[in-house]
């Protein structure tokens, strides 16, 4: 029965395809294989979500070993949703990759690129699906190591230093996580998350468990680029190849946020995280600072990819804020923004990928007059930008609505004001780009630039239109997010 092994297939398909890509050696076949594998993974993710919606939590024992001794893959609504996001983004980004990779990466290295990409996908899917705390570390490192490689493939030499910086910070973060898991193991003797959740309350009031909590949250915070641990992100996103930026921006930080959710709500439980530790007292101010400071920094960027990267830091602040509110509505806001932001940033970075391939630069000054020269690409950017601002009938609006509602429910209207203020900062940085692209005439003697090819436009527009669709019909996103939040807050379900 294949249906029985879906959770394993989710990870195994891209994992097996990765070495096969190396064997193929030619960019075309390697791309085709990667795309096929990614689409298959997407299919599996859809089936998993359907299965979870119908049957409730799925538990898969890897190799037939009973948990808590063996590794358990545990799929509930929260991670089924995250799996879907990651797999969907990858399935859209890969068709785009063909042209983009050909333009940005030397042909003889292209097959290695696809192989690394698949490994990264494997790691991200693995993090999301596993129910074992140590297994999370392993997958975290698989995805991290491959993403260091992917980032370093950028054309600019600064990609190398960005990747190195990320490597240092990422390794420290992962090691922190490892320490946290070790401390928990020392106190409870188990690594299975559900099992941990049951055993932790007995020892919750010890310094070791408190230290473990701190190590885990900081470690994951680095990977999630939660303010102020985000320093690696702007350069990494800025200098990485366009495809990598789009993929990582839409998925990597999201998966880390998911792990944070798991740690807070499933492993430690809301009672410990919010009442004993008062996690929110630290995280809410940091999240608000992220929203305001990173958005302000974004305004002053002249490289559009870097501008969007700072915007990502701010948007991660929204998610952390939602989670830190600790209420069902707050967590719903966090989860739904996970999904929505993946589509927004995925679409925007793909649009920038089109620009980079056709124009050879994403510097703001080079984009003058681009509204006329690449009308479809820039129209996509404008719609994505509006979604980022949170204009109604886009996904960004939905996220903002739920988040503001969550703050008002707790009577914290001041946070609501800051959330909306940060949207206005988004308006400023998005419109800086729009004005240059549409109203500044192209410089004299600028090279002729034509519209991006359809193979790149279609994936871009797919994500952009998803922004509009899920901005109007929210039954899937918001419905699943709310149920996922209820599951998480209901303890270790």
């Amino acid at each position, binding site marked *: 029965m294949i249906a029985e092994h879906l959770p394993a297939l989710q990870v195994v398909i891209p994992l097996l395809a990765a070495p096969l890509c190396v064997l193929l050696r030619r960019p075309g076949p390697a791309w085709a294989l990667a795309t096929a594998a990614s689409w298959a993974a997407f299919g599996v993710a859809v089936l998993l979500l359907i299965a979870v919606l119908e049957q409730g939590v799925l538990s898969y024992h890897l190799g037939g070993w009973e948990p808590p001794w063996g590794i358990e893959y545990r799929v509930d609504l929260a991670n089924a949703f995250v799996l879907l996001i990651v797999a969907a983004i990858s399935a859209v980004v890969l068709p785009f990759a063909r042209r983009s990779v050909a333009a940005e990466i030397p042909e003889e290295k292209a097959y290695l690129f696809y192989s690394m990409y698949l490994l990264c996908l494997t790691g991200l899917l693995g993090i999301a699906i596993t129910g074992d705390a140590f297994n999370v570390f392993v997958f975290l490192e698989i995805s991290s190591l491959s993403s260091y490689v992917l980032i370093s493939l950028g054309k600019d030499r600064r990609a190398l230093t960005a990747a190195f910086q990320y490597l240092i910070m990422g390794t420290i973060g992962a090691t922190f996580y490892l320490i946290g898991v070790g401390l928990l193991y020392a106190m409870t003797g188990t690594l299975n998350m559900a099992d941990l959740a049951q055993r932790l309350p007995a020892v919750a009031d010890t310094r070791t468990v408190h230290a473990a909590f701190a190590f885990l949250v900081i470690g994951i915070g680095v990977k999630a680029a939660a303010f102020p641990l985000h320093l690696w992100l702007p350069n990494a996103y800025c200098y990485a190849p366009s495809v990598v930026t789009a993929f990582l921006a839409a998925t990597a930080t999201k998966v880390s946020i998911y792990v944070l959710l798991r740690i807070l709500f499933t492993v430690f439980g809301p009672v410990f995280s919010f009442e004993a530790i008062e996690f929110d007292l630290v995280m809410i101010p940091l999240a608000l600072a992220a929203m305001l400071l990173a958005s302000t920094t974004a305004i002053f960027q002249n490289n559009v990819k870097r501008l969007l990267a700072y915007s990502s830091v701010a948007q991660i602040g929204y998610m952390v804020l939602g989670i830190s509110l600790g209420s069902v509505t707050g967590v719903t806001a966090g989860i739904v923004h996970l999904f929505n932001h993946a589509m927004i940033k995925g679409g925007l970075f793909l649009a920038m990928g089109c620009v980079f391939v056709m124009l050879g630069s994403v510097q703001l000054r080079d984009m003058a007059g681009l509204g006329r020269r690449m009308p479809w690409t820039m129209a996509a950017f404008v719609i994505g930008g*509006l979604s980022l*601002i*949170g*204009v*109604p*009938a886009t996904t960004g609006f*939905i996220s*903002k*609505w*739920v988040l*503001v*509602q969550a703050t*008002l*429910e707790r009577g914290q*209207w001041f946070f*609501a*004001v800051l959330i*909306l*203020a940060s*949207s*206005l900062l988004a*308006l400023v940085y998005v*419109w800086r780009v729009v*004005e240059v692209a*549409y*109203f500044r005439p192209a410089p004299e003697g600028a090279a002729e630039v034509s519209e991006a090819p359809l193979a790149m436009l279609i994936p871009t527009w797919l994500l952009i239109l998803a922004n509009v669709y899920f901005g*109007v*019909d*929210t*039954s899937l996103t*918001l*419905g699943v997010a*709310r149920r996922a939040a209820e599951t998480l807050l209901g303890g270790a379900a």
Partner: protein
Amino acid sequence: MSPETAVWLAPAIPLAGAPLIALARRSPNLREAVTLITAAVLFLVVLQLVPEVMAGGRPAVTLLEMLPGLTLTFEVEPLGMVFAVVASFLWIVTSIYSIGYMRGHHEKNQTRFYVCFALALSSAMGVAFAGNMLTLFIFYEALTLTTYPLVTHSGTKEAVAAGRSYLGILLATSIGLQLLAIVWTWTLTGTLDFTTGGILQGHASPAMAALLYALFLFGIGKAAIMPLHRWLPAAMVAPTPVSALLHAVAVVKAGVFTVLKVSVYLFGIDFLAEAGASQWLMYVAAATILIASLVALKQDNLKRRLAYSTISQLSYIVLGATLANGLGAIGGGMHIAMHAFGKITLFFCAGAIDVALHKKQVSEMRGIGRAMPVTMTAFLIGSLSIIGLPPFGGLWSKWYLGLGTLEAGEYALLAVLMISSLLNVAYLLPIPIRAFFSPAEKGNEASGLKEAPLPCVLAFSVTALGCLFLFFFPEPLFRVLSLMVPG
């Protein structure tokens, strides 16, 4: 056609017209024909709804559920009916005018112009027929965004700067304040439906209601209450048809319309009066009326002068809403229609003068009445209607607003209305008087008629006659608007 179909068709028709207009870009004649047909069909569809609404019906249609418990709903009520009829009728007139103006002016990017215009009208229809605050907000924002390309149409530095303050103020207020107020209302009451008598009663303390009302009022930047009025004079860089229909009718009226909707259907005028939530905002509106009129006096650029006049007139409607009694709300609602006809006439004339004589400054317009007698007569009619003199429609709305101030016992505000009318005389009437009676400036003596192209003349003749018509037949308007106030 059932009324329900007509309800959703109203926003859908211009939306469907937009791509057709874009497709017809190769042939200007075909393109303008598509615009005109779309506008005419829209008007007919909107008219279909009138009997139903006059009979007290409120046809509604729900499209889908956007957020749990919050739907995308259209529902036609009297106020929205008035707004929709006015806007869709004037779109036809403006389209005719645009043909003369845009060609006479040799504007670039005319296709983009017509497409955005249709999209803006679609948004305006959505605002008019919105059945709850969320739907209204969506179309409110869509209206801002679809008019942005029209404001920056010329693409000059000045236009871009104007676009910046346009978008900046309108989006900043709506996202920063109005959205907050909406979500707050939603958390308080669990509904955002427009309900006769309001939904907030019993859910908010008077102090909270006052704060919430202020958030709404300043959040609705399109109502151009001072100090959030700067975008409107800035938007005057747009081609004149845009200033005429959008920045004298659709956009600004969408703003005051929203104010009225919020006051009447979210707060309920009884609750407003009881909680005293709108008390101090009444004086803000009154101050806006006076200050904007004074500023208008000093403007030499005709369109800017008219823009400040609009700011002042919009606050009449806001004042009507904040008076928190039935007569004030009805007077405000009537003023939406009355001011629309008067002001659009004035803008049409301003554009016609620009096309025919290339004059934009008031000081250059001495003696032009001899060259453009029809234009200046229409201008005179528009001015008189704005001032509120018989036999023009503007009289009636001011009449009911005045009665509203008396009912509220605010005699000072009645005085404000009077003074403002005098100020209107001072900044509007000298223009036609000098045009007719002053000697022409040197170099302006060019003899003979030099009217604007025929479509322009046709357009402002229709709207000027409309002002006259509304004086004699205001009764249906009054009757339909009385339906929105309970009891």
